[in-house]
């Protein structure tokens, strides 16, 4: 049965904090100045906001402290915190709350100074400290870095499907090409003291040092500062906003965790993707822009597979003909802002997938896909290969 596509809620305001290194700023400041800017983009004000979605990544109490700081009294507070995918979950929940008549203007926001405070995300986790806990007791002795967790998925993927590092490198290459067209990304890589700020080749990726086999440095996201905000409104509010609306037409949520006998090459996207596509009434091959959480190259291919863009292990064939670039006829363009690999990754990147999807469907991207009509944003939080959450949001222009 074909579902009737609903157009009841739209992203009407966005802001991406431009700096990737912002010394002297606080996470709350980045978050709240982004909210004000996104409201201004929409032509709305703080007093219009009646629903707040907040992963509680800044100062105390999640939506409570944020509401108090902003000076608003929302009817809906949702503090779902599932790492980098939190923001896709928030949009899914905002859609649900708007459809139910419980919210009119919803705010999703993020702020982080992970780079300025040198947060040890990828390779610096100190295990074996703090209060005793269930999973830590079984895993802390073994020195699993976050990157090694993803690398274990990559090795199994190579073992099962014949995927190669050269296949995975195509993702880094396309993403960097998009980053070089995005002035904020170029400034960010400069501020963060990247070497070789230029387009990459597959060979460049394969010659970069290995952090955790088989993942090379240029297959890993950066650690930056940053943040942003987006405003979602119901269809009655949309009539009076300033920007072309970007409709939320499908949303799905899922989780996955390691199980005895389980397949760690399958992600939560295998649960969230079909739900989102079914609600939207569209197919993967109709998607113009795919904004896929690129913590690492392996994350991207696993999710593109699970969302139905191609079969497991077919990345090498699928990526041929520069398919992922914004300016080729083949769909979809991938991570057209430069991604977490080359634009920004302050720890929880999911909001940027929604912001760039919105820019594409408004015609405002620095790597604009001609006549982009449909975008998918898929966020991943937690650790691929272990416990992680995934949410898929499908967006459409008018």
């Amino acid at each position, binding site marked *: 049965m074909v579902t009737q596509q609903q157009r009841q809620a739209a992203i009407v305001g966005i802001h991406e904090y431009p700096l990737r290194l912002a010394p002297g700023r606080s996470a709350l400041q980045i978050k709240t100045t982004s909210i004000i800017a996104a409201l201004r983009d929409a032509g709305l004000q703080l007093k219009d906001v009646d629903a707040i979605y907040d992963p509680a990544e800044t100062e105390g109490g999640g939506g409570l402290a944020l509401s108090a700081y902003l000076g608003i009294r929302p009817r809906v507070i949702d503090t779902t915190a599932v790492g980098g995918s939190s923001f896709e979950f928030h949009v899914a929940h905002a859609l649900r709350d708007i459809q139910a008549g419980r919210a009119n203007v919803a705010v999703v926001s993020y702020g982080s100074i992970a780079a300025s405070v040198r947060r040890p995300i990828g390779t610096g986790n100190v*295990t074996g400290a703090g209060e005793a806990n269930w999973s830590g007791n079984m895993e802390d002795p073994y020195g699993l870095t976050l990157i090694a967790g993803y690398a274990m998925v990559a090795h199994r993927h190579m073992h099962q499907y014949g995927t190669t590092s050269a296949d995975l490198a195509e993702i880094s290459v396309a993403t960097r090409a998009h980053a070089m067209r995005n002035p904020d990304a170029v400034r960010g890589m400069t501020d963060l003291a990247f070497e070789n700020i230029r387009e990459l080749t597959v060979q460049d990726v394969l010659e970069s040092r290995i952090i955790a086999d088989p993942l090379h440095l240029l297959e890993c996201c950066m650690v930056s500062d940053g943040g942003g905000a987006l405003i979602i409104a119901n269809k009655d509010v949309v009539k009076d906003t300033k920007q072309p609306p970007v409709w939320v037409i499908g949303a799905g949520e899922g989780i996955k965790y390691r199980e005895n006998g389980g397949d760690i090459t399958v992600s939560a996207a295998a649960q969230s993707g079909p739900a989102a596509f079914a609600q939207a009434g569209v197919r993967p091959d109709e998607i113009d822009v795919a904004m896929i959480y690129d913590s690492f190259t392996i994350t991207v291919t696993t999710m593109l597979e699970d969302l139905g863009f191609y079969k497991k292990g077919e990345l090498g064939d699928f990526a041929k003909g520069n398919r992922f670039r914004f300016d080729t006829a083949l769909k979809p363009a991938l991570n057209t802002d430069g991604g977490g690999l080359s634009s920004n990754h302050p720890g929880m990147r999911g909001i940027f997938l929604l912001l760039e999807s919105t820019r594409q469907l408004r015609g405002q991207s620095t790597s604009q896909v001609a006549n982009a009509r449909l975008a998918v944003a898929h966020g991943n939080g937690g650790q691929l290969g272990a416990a992680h959450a995934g949410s898929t949001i499908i967006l459409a222009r008018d």
Partner: protein
Amino acid sequence: MPRRPQPRFPEPNTQPYWEAVKDGRLTYQRCNDCNAVVFTPKFHCAACSSENLSWHDSSGAGTIYTYSVVRQNRNPVFSDLGAYVVAYVDLDEGFRMMTNIVGIANPLTDVHCGQRVQVQFEVQESGDYPIPVFAPV
């Protein structure tokens, strides 16, 4: 001598597992009602919701499901090891555990998915609990 972090207590799910490790036994749970294998240790069976579980000794023999050679870890406890192998091992009894692979000349070339391995209990520089690691058979 290695300085891998020790388990910490009180943690009631995993304490019986670690007390057995101290005796040189690798243990896992089974559900007495539906016979499902339960691991990581806990108090219920996800398959049938039963809380009637029992502990069993594993042979310690298994197969590497997947692995990574960690080249960079800013935690000195691990960076002092040089390149080391973290892995998931599927034990023959049907449970999968995180571990390290040891006893290999070159971690970059001598480990692969599907490789047969056997548990060892590695004594640490300090602490009462040896750590279960695996070496190729």
